C-alpha cells in the first residue's frame, strides 16, 4: 500500500532576480513559508554572510580549474509561482514519469520541481516505522526539535557564497530521518527537477540515520533542457549514526544547459557504514564537493563514482576522505571517461588526522580519454599526520587498452563496437551498484549512448 499526499510549495514575495534580493526579502521568505524562528534566524545569518562574501574566483585552489566569471548572476531568477501539486504519479509531467518506475522499487518518493515539493508518496511500512520523509518546512513545524538538531549540522551556511545562498534563499528542501534500529528494505527516492528558464534553484536534502538504522536513499537531479541559463546550488547533508548503515546513490542527469555547484557531505559515527554511488552524465558544468568525514572509531566509508563527459561538458569533482579518528576505513574509486571537447577535473584528498592511528585509506582515479580534444586533470592528494596507517592512492589517464581492443577485434568485432563494449565494462562495476533497476537501466543506457556517439 502506498499513500500519496499533496504538498503545497511555499510562496514568497522575493524580488524576482538575485540582483534585487535584500535582507528584508529574505525575512519575508521565512515568514511566507511559515518557518519557525530558528529557521528564519538561520536564513538571515546566511544572507548577512552572502552580502560580504563574493563568488569564488580562480585564485582559490579548488576553483583554479573552473572559471565561473562569465555567469550573469544578478539577472538569474530566484522566485516563481509554485507548480500545482500532483495527486498521483500519473499527474506528474511526462518527462518525470519515465524516471520513476514501478512503486515496488521504493518505500518513498519525493518530487521537487523548481522551487517546491510537488509530490510526496510514502508506503505504510515506512510510516509505521516512524521514518520521516517530509519537506523541511513541514518537518520543522511538526518536529522542530529534530529539525533544529540536524539542519545545518553538517554543511554550514558560512563555507562559501554557495552554501550561504542555499541557506538564505532555499525555498524548500527534503528531510529524511530514520529512527534508531529501523531498517528499510526499499530505497527512498528524492527526485529534483527543473523546468523554468533562468531560474536559480537551491535544493537541500538532509538525511539522518540514528544508531543501528539501515536505509538506501537515491537523490537524482534531472531536467529536459528548458531554454536559458540554469543554475542549481544544492546542499546535501548526511549523518550516519552509530552502527547505522546507509547507501546513497547520487545521479546527475541534468540537461546540457545546467550549471551545478553542489556540496554533499556525510558524517559517519562509530562503526557506521556509508556507501556512496555517484553517476554524473548531464549538465554543462558540474562542480561538486563530495566529502566523507569518519568521526567515530570503526566507521567505514566507501565511494564508487563514475562520470562521462562529452561535447563541451565540464566536470570538476572534489572528494575528501577525512579520517578524524583512528581505526576508520575509507575506500574510493572514481572512474571517468571523456570525449569530444569535454574537460574533467578530479581533485581528491585523503586526510589522516594526528590522532587517527590505525586508519586505512584508499583512493583511485581512472580516466579514459576518447578524444584528442578532451582534457582530464587528476590530482589525488594525501595529507597524513599519523604514522600507524595504511594509505595508498593511484591515478591513471589513458586510452582504451589496445590489447583488449585487439582481443575483441580479433574475434570479428568492429573497432567502434569493441570500444563501446570496453567502455561499458569500465563503468559496469560502479553502475551495478545503483539500487533501482529502473534507474540502473536508464543510466546505463545514457552511458552507452555517450560511448556510442
Amino acid at each position, binding site marked *: 500500500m502506498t499513500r500519496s499526499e499533496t504538498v503545497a510549495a511555499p510562496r514568497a514575495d522575493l524580488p524576482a532576480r538575485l540582483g534585487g534580493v535584500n535582507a528584508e526579502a529574505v525575512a519575508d521568505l521565512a515568514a511566507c513559508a511559515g518557518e519557525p524562528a530558528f529557521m528564519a534566524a538561520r536564513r538571515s545569518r546566511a544572507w548577512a554572510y552572502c552580502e560580504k562574501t563574493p563568488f569564488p574566483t580562480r585564485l582559490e585552489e579548488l576553483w583554479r580549474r573552473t572559471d565561473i566569471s562569465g555567469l550573469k548572476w544578478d539577472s538569474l531568477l530566484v522566485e516563481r509561482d509554485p507548480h500545482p501539486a500532483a495527486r498521483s504519479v500519473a499527474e506528474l509531467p511526462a518527462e518525470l514519469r519515465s524516471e520513476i518506475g514501478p512503486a515496488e522499487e521504493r518505500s518513498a518518493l519525493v518530487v521537487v520541481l523548481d522551487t517546491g515539493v510537488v509530490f510526496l508518496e510514502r508506503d505504510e511500512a515506512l510510516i509505521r516505522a516512524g521514518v520521516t520523509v517530509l519537506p523541511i518546512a513541514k518537518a520543522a513545524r511538526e518536529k522542530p526539535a529534530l529539525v533544529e538538531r540536524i539542519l545545518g549540522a553538517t554543511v554550514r551556511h558560512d563555507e562559501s557564497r554557495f552554501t550561504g545562498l542555499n541557506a538564505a534563499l532555499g525555498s524548500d528542501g527534503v528531510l529524511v530521518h530514520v529512527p534508531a534500529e529501523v531498517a528499510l528494505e526499499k530505497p527512498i527516492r528524492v527526485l529534483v527537477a527543473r523546468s523554468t528558464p533562468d531560474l536559480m534553484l537551491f535544493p537541500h536534502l538532509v538525511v539522518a540515520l540514528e544508531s543501528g538504522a539501515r536505509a538506501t536513499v537515491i537523490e537524482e537531479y534531472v531536467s529536459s533542457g528548458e531554454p536559458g541559463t540554469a543554475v542549481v546550488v544544492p546542499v546535501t547533508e548526511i549523518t550516519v549514526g552509530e552502527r547505522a548503515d546507509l547507501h546513497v546513490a547520487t545521479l546527475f542527469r541534468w540537461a546540457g544547459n545546467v550549471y551545478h555547484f553542489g556540496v554533499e557531505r556525510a558524517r559517519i559515527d562509530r562503526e557506521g557504514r556509508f556507501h556512496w554511488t555517484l553517476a554524473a552524465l548531464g549538465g554543462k558544468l558540474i562542480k561538486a564537493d563530495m566529502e566523507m568525514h569518519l568521526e567515530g572509531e570503526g566507521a567505514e566509508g566507501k565511494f564508487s563514482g563514475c562520470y562521462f563527459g562529452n561535447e563541451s561538458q565540464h566536470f570538476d569533482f572534489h572528494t575528501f576522505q577525512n579520517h578524524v579518528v583512528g581505526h576508520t576505513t575509507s575506500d574510493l574509486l572514481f572512474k571517468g571517461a571523456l570525449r569530444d571537447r569535454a574537460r574533467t577535473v578530479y581533485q581528491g584528498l585523503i586526510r589522516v588526522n594526528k590522532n587517527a592511528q590505525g586508519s586505512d585509506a584508499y583512493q583511485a582515479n581512472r580516466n579514459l*580519454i576518447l*578524444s*584528442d580534444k*578532451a582534457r*582530464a586533470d587528476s590530482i589525488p592528494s594525501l595529507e597524513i599526520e599519523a604514522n600507524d*596507517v595504511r594509505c*595508498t592512492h593511484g591515478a*591513471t589517464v589513458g*586510452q582504451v587498452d589496445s590489447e583488449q581492443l585487439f582481443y575483441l577485434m580479433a574475434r570479428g568485432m568492429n573497432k567502434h563496437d569493441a570500444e563501446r563494449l570496453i567502455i561499458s565494462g569500465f563503468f559496469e562495476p560502479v553502475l551495478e551498484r545503483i539500487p533501482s533497476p529502473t534507474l540502473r537501466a536508464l543510466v546505463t543506457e545514457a552511458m552507452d549512448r555517450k560511448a556510442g556517439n
Partner: protein
Amino acid sequence: MKENTDTLDIREGYREKFGFHDDIAPVFKSRRGLDQDVVREISAMKKEPEWMLAFRLKALEHFERKPLPTWGGNVAEIDFQNIFYYLKPTDEQGKSWDDVPADIKRTFDKLGIPEAEQKFLSGVGAQYDSETVYHKIKEDLANKGVIFLDTGSALEQHPELFRQYFGTIIPPSDNKFAALNSAVWSGGSFIYVPKGVKVDLPLQAYFRINAQNMGQFERTLIIVDEGAYVHYVEGCTAPIYASDSLHSAVVEIIVKKGARCRYTTIQNWSNNVYNLVTKRAAAYQDATMEWVDANLGSKLTMKYPSVYMMEPGAHAEILSIAFAGKGQHQDAGGKVVHVASNTTSNVVSKSISKDGGRAGYRGLVKVAKGAVDCKSTVRCDALLLDEDSRSDTYPYMEIEEDRVSVGHEATVSKIGDEQLFYLMSRGIPEAEAAGMIVSGFIEPITKELPMEYAVEMNRLIQLQMEGSVG
C-alpha cells in the same frame, strides 16, 4: 653530551661538521635591503653590460609586483629588506688552489673539497657566498672545449653564448623567487659541453652560505650540445646562525638533440635557511634530462625541478628524496611537461618525516595539446617515523591528449614492526635497525649517486636517525 640548541636536535652532528663560520671581511658588501640602487650597485661592481642591468631591473619590477605564494610552505616571515643581497669575499678569483686566501681555504678544507678533487673529480667550482673563488677544470676537458666557469666570468668571457641562452628557460616573470634571483643573482656555475663530448667524471660545485642574513642567489646555466653528456653535482651547507637566511637559486639547463644531462643535488642547509629554488631543463630530440634531488637540510624547501620535453624522443627522470626532521618542512617534488609527442618520463619520490617534520611530494605531469604517444609514471613513497610527523602528496596531472599513458601511485607507511623485529632479533640496536630500514627505503635513489655522495648520504641519514629511538 653534545651541546645543542632547540632548533638543532634532529640534526645532531651538523654543528660539528658544518656549523662553523669563519670571520672573513668581505671586500664589498651591499647594504641591507633591496631597491633599484642595490641592483645597479651589484651590476656596476660586476662591470656588467647594459643589457644585464636592464634584465635585472625588469626582474626587480616583477619581484615587487608578484605576491608571495600562498601554497606550499610558510614564506610570510621572510623579511626581504633585512637581507644582504651581495657580498664579494676576495678581489680576484683564484686561478689555482694556491691562490685562494688561507681563511677561505680553511673553510673548504673543513668541507673536504680539495681531497675530493685530488682523487678523481674533474673540476671543482666552490661558491663562497656570492662569487666563486676557486674554479679549475682538468686540462683535457678544457682542451675538448668544455667550459666550466662561474656564471659571472662566463658573461665576461663568452658574452654571445651566454646571452643566447641566459633567461630563456626560466624568464624573470616565472615566479616571485625566480624574479628575485634574476634581479640580484651572482655566482653559480656555467657549463658548456660541445657536440659529442662526454664528460666522464662528475663536475662539482660546493655552495656555502657564510654571512648572517645573507641571501644566496646563484644562477646556473648548463648547455649540453648535441650528443654530449655531463653530470653536475652540487652540495650545499650553511653554518648555523640565530637568524634566518634565504637561498633562492635559478638553474637553467638546455639538453640538445641526443644529449644527456644529470644534475645531482645534496641539499644540507642548516635549519634556518629558506631554500626556494627554481630549476628547469628543456630537453630536445632524443635527449635525456635527469634530476637527482636530495633535500635533507633547510627550514623550508620549496623546489620542484622540472623538465620540458620539447621534441620527440625526449626523456625525463626525476629522483627526489625529502627528509624532514624537527622544525623542517620539505615541499619537494618535480614537474614533467610533455610538449612533444613520443616523450617519456619517470618520477620516483621518497619522503621521510620524523620528529614533527613535514615532508612531501608536489608534482605535475602535463601532456600538452598535440603531444601524443606520451608515457609517464610517478611513484611516491612516504615513510612516517613517528606520530608527530606529517606526509603530504599532491600530484597534479593535466592531460590534454588521448593517446597517452599516465600513471601515479603513492603509499604512506611507517617502519614495519616485522622488519624492525627481524633486525633487532639479530642483535642490531633499534636506532641502527631503523636507520638501515630508512637507508633501504631510499636505496633506489642513493644507488644513482656518485660513490662518495652515496656514502655521505647514508651517513647523513644515519646521523639523523641517531637519538630518534629511546
